[in-house]
């Protein structure tokens, strides 16, 4: 459905120097440096996938999204999405996609949300009947009944984001690009948005490409992650694989009857220790968690044990470090 092959993109950026004299000079003459935003990016996405597209700031995420949505033309490489080349058949192509930019609104600020929807209906030439059905479905599933008649400027960020997502789905796109859809949202709204994204993917088979800095989004939504850094693809595969490969640490928190002997178990590291509670990390390459718990129960009288996997956040930090991005 989506194929990118050897996409390259570089920007010319004017060098900025400090100082008034340099600034005055820059008025007439500017040195340019070329920044390679994307280097030989190649991947393929099949219909119905949810792909988490991650990477630190400035890695090239937005550039890729812009190329895939037909805004930017790459220097070299091919991109075929549903048979279209996005930047060539722009008008015909963009009917099939929805785009949500998390930090930019697509709604008309001063009028009720429903007016924006009506105008979008005309922009996308959606037949009246299709529009009614889709609109009602979106209002219902995103719980917009209460807010649909309020002007956008009076909505909270969470409410607005729900409307933004609805707005980009009115024309029933086959592909949805979400650029940081949960940025700045409170926990409840985040969960609502995630829930909805899952639903449209499952029920309507919409292919979703999602960029985010919130790893909980990825964990909740994406089966597959593509990691990009400094313009190159670094990892493309299942989230589970990534975890297996990198999440080799588990944290065990143990509460026990008062005991003054410090714990010493091979393959572990003690993070904190009191006579009643210990937090230790286990390197699963060396030993298993069950082995550690068995040993623990030999030393102390356990009251409670909690095991936590390494948060995905840590894995990503580890990855960034490993690839030096």
């Amino acid at each position, binding site marked *: 459905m989506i194929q990118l092959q050897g996409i390259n993109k570089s*920007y*010319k950026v004017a060098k900025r120097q400090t100082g008034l004299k340099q600034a005055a000079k820059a008025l007439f003459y500017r040195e340019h440096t070329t920044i390679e935003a994307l280097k030989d990016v190649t991947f393929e996405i099949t219909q119905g996938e949810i792909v988490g597209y991650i990477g630190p700031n400035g890695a090239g995420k937005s*550039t890729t999204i*812009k190329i895939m*949505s*037909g*805004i*930017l*033309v790459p220097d070299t490489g091919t991109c075929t999405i549903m048979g279209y080349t996005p*930047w060539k058949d*722009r*008008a*015909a192509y*963009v*009917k099939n*996609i929805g*785009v949500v*930019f998390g930090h*930019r609104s*697509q709604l*008309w*600020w*001063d*009028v009720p949300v429903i*007016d*924006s929807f*009506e*105008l979008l209906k*005309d*922009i*996308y*030439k959606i037949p009246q009947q299709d529009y009614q059905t889709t609109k009602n479905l979106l209002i219902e599933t995103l719980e917009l009944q209460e807010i649909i008649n309020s*002007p956008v400027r009076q909505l909270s960020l969470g409410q607005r984001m729900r409307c933004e997502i609805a707005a980009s789905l009115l024309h029933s796109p086959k592909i949805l690009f979400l650029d940081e859809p949960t940025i700045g949202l409170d926990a409840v709204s985040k969960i609502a948005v995630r829930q909805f994204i899952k639903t449209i993917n499952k029920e309507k088979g919409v292919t979703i490409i999602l960029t985010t800095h919130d790893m909980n989004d990825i964990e909740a939504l994406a089966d597959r992650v593509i990691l990009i850094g400094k313009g190159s693809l670094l990892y493309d595969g299942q989230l589970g694989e990534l975890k297996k490969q990198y999440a080799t640490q588990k944290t065990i928190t143990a509460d026990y009857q008062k005991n003054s002997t410090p714990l010493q178990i091979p393959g572990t590291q003690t993070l904190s220790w009191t006579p009643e509670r210990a937090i230790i990390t286990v390197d699963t390459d060396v030993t298993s968690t069950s082995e550690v718990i068995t040993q623990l129960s030999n030393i102390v009288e356990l009251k409670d044990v909690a095991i936590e996997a390494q948060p995905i956040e840590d894995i990503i930090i580890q990855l960034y470090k490993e690839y030096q991005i």
Partner: protein
Amino acid sequence: MSLYFKYLKILFKSQMQYRASFLLLMTGQFFIPFSVFAGLYFLFERFGQIRGWDFFEVALCFAVIHMAFAISECFARGFDMFSGMVVRGEFDRVLVRPRSTFIQVLGSKFEFTRFGRLLQSAVVLAWALGSLPLQWSPAKILTLILMITSGVLIFTGIFILQATMCFWTVQGLEVANIFTDGGREMAQYPLNIYQKWVARFFTYVIPFGTVNYLPLMYLLGKNNGNDLLYMLIPALGSLFILPCVLFWQLGVRHYRSTGS
């Protein structure tokens, strides 16, 4: 075109959210050109006529240009305010919608407050027409309408040029105001009162001369024959907008390859 009216509807609704400031701005817009017009009036009060043009003839010229300017500021405000759209990244949104960039930018803003200015120029127009001893004919009415519509197209063309420059400079270029505001100030007088090179510039480069001075001669019966040419010359001037639109397309292509 129907989409454009849909845009208008939503923009009008937005504008009506701020009714008080709308009314104040509109009143202001009524009086701003009024002071300019008062200047014109007192000038003629003192000197009687300028290069053979008397007050009502110049007032007609003034009204046509100001009306054209007010209408194009209403409709083409989206291009006038375009730099903000680029800076805020809203132009990306335009590109992901399945309509031409032209209609979308045109529909992004409509300056309803300029109705004040429009009203004022309409009053001046009515007054000038009422006071001039004109022999009316359908051809002359058509010419007058052509003068105004062509004027609108020329001003719009300049707004488009100004907007297109933003693709390269990001910031809006105040320099274009020389041609919009400046052009308006110059063209409110018949062009033959100026130096030759000024008159030429505003005839052949930015063709304001084709929408006021030349057809005005025909309206007032000052031309020597060749009625048809004088009558249709505004239509020729309106062709100015074509290269502007082409330049716009070029700018959009540049934007999409640089993403700046």
